[in-house]
């Protein structure tokens, strides 16, 4: 075990930090300058290491630590390097893994530059945990798919150029075998976006309605009826390493709150019950951090199979820990917990600076056990894939 990065990586970190310092001097960056910043970062190999140069990547040797160093330093700088999770995070690796060559050439470069924004069309009102029961359909008419139906929980839909999604194309096939994975343009007649307001008042998601929406026949990833398998590839990227530093930042926000809140006339951080709850949380946060370190280290060493079990637990564990932080934060704001989240709290997710930001965190944490694979589904996965328990009894459907 060796937790130091060593001189080579420390030098790399220094180099990255110098680069971010230069760009930070000009912050905030305009849309154009931001794109330029990412271009320069890519030229130096800081971004898109795993993506061939011909698609706009920097095509470097796999090095999880260099990736982690860049992520840490870029995050710390506040520079706009993270593009939409759906594009760079999901569709790009999916196309790299199983897309057609022309699809890669057409979609990846623009996505990496930030010109193409993507949204995701998976969930439906009747298909949440049981995603494979989705009913939005596409039928081939000549050289076009004609799409009808209704998707929900689509983030960034208004700002998107493209959507990737699952649609039922083989109505007679069994549930999982009847789905295809299609790409489509968002801005076209028949596609209607309706914002969906959250319980805290914020609007991050949409419903999308399809009324004879069209997309070319070859805008399909994988073969007809293989959409479920494609989505599994894709979801693998969605549920990637839950960053340990993110959880620590949230917890530090909570500590700050405990320092500036008062209980019985003294700082809450001196209140014995609060201290106890914070110290318990320190244990959970450190588990998140060290588990992240284990995963990073294993990935870097090509030993991912050694961390397959904790990877199954990332979502559930992260959800529970975030909920504990949010609940303690809500307690610490005391009577201000009667207030609604302010407009500014709804724009920044997890605002730790204001008391009403913590009211919002309390409400937002309600989504934790629901979104991106419910906690109960996670428990099934952990039990079945992690502990080798048999599948649930199912109705004979």
């Amino acid at each position, binding site marked *: 075990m060796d937790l130091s990065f060593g001189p080579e990586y420390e030098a790399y970190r220094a180099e990255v930090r110098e680069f971010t310092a230069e760009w930070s001097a000009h912050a905030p960056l305009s849309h154009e300058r931001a794109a330029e910043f990412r271009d320069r970062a890519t030229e130096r190999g800081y971004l898109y290491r795993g993506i061939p140069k011909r698609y706009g990547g920097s095509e470097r040797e796999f090095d999880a630590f260099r990736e982690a160093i860049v992520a840490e330093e870029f995050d710390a700088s506040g520079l706009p390097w993270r593009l939409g999770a759906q594009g760079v995070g999901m569709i790009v690796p999916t196309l790299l893994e199983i897309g057609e060559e022309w699809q890669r050439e057409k979609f990846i470069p623009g996505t990496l530059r930030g010109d193409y924004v993507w949204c995701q069309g998976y*969930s439906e*009102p*009747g298909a*949440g*945990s*049981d995603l494979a*029961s989705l009913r939005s359909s596409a039928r081939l008419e000549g050289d076009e798919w004609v799409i009808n139906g209704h998707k*929900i*929980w689509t983030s960034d839909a208004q700002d998107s150029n493209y959507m990737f999604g699952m649609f039922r194309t083989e109505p007679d096939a069994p549930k999982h075998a009847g789905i295809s994975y299609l790409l489509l343009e968002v801005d076209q007649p028949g596609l209607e976006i309706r914002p*969906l*307001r*959250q*319980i805290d*008042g914020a609007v991050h998601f949409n419903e999308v309605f399809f009324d004879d929406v069209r997309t070319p026949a070859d805008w399909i990833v994988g073969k007809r009826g293989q959409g479920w398998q494609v989505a599994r590839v894709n979801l693998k990227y969605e549920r990637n390493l839950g960053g340990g530093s993110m959880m620590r930042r949230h917890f530090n926000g909570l500590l700050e709150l405990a320092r500036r809140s*008062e*209980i019985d*006339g003294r700082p809450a951080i001196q209140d014995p*019950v609060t201290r106890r709850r914070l110290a318990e949380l320190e244990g959970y946060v450190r588990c998140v951090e060290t588990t992240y370190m284990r995963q990073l280290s294993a990935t870097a060493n090509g030993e991912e199979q050694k961390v397959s079990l904790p990877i199954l637990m990332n979502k559930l564990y992260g959800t529970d820990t975030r909920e504990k932080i949010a609940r303690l934060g809500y*307690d610490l704001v*005391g*009577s201000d*917990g*009667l*207030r*609604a*989240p*302010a407009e500014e709290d709804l724009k920044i997710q997890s605002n730790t600076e204001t008391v009403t930001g913590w*009211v919002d965190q*309390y*409400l937002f944490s*309600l*989504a934790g*056990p*629901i*979104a991106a694979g*419910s*906690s*109960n589904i996670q*428990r099934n996965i952990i039990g079945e894939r992690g502990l080798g328990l048999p599948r*649930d009894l*199912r*109705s004979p*459907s």
Partner: protein
Amino acid sequence: MHFGLTEEQELLQQTIREFAASELPAPKLRALFDEGSGHDPGLWAKSAEIGLAGLTVPESYGGAGLELLDLALAFEVLGESALPGPYLGHALAALAIAEGGSEDQKQRWLPRLASGEAIGTVALAERNNVWECADWRVEFRDGALAGEKEFVPYAQLADLTLVGTVGGGLAVLERDAEGSRVDAVDGVDRTRALGRLELTGARAEALPAPPGTAERVLDAGRVLLAADSFGGAWKLIETTAEYTRTREQFGTPIAQFQSVKHMLADAATEIEPARGLFWYAAYAWERLPEESPRAAATAKAHLTDRAADVSRTCVELHGGIGFTWECDVQFWVKRAMFNRTFLGAPSAQLERVADLGGW
């Protein structure tokens, strides 16, 4: 010995339940919630007609002359129905005047409060989580109030506000009195409006209340919040049970998944056995005054905490839709937040339970 409800009490609950069902159909509640004022004059007037505004006001002053338990049972149904309106502050103002007002004050205010013609409220909280009388800092000197009160229910609407003052006094402030200013607070629970009250020499009249009156008002409020939480939590459990019976995933109602069933069973088991807590606290407030403060604190801490937990479970069991503004579950989630915080969070109440227990 009878630890249960009388037929009259069951009828009272039934009456309010039917009132809410007919006067506050789901779309109307939704509209009121979205609009955000927490008040509908017509609804208030109709609820006063069935007696909701004056349940505990003595009959000689035009009220129903009932006890705190009856009021708490009414609040259980208000909680069930998420009925928007100034019921809490109004009820506490009426109790305060009935308990501690002069004959003149009673005659002046109680009949109007009982009929709902006048709306009352109480101004108790101050900055830094102050709720207890001993910590009040608003000065009342030479007939004038100076200081600030936070989180006053329906401060803008109330015809009279009972303002808690240094040393546990209560002073009657009339609407729009010079030297008083109200700022609306954007509250998380849109079924109950809140305001901030700034007092710079506003004229007011003290209640010649016997010592301990303000504490009794706080205790009564805690009982009512406990009752409201019970009603709300139970309503959510029933709503969610119904949802899980109809929502299908994997080809079957999700209620057939054992983990769903057990989450609901656990939620119900956290709530149902706590019904007696608010019953007992309400009874003690009337009949066992020496036990009342601790019983009220216990009921408030326990029930509002459990109801908040249950509201989270019920959101989770609704899945994504439960997280949306358009899902009615949010009414009870946010009422649970209000109930848990208002009149002092569970943490503070539990410390009182320990203190009052002589621990």
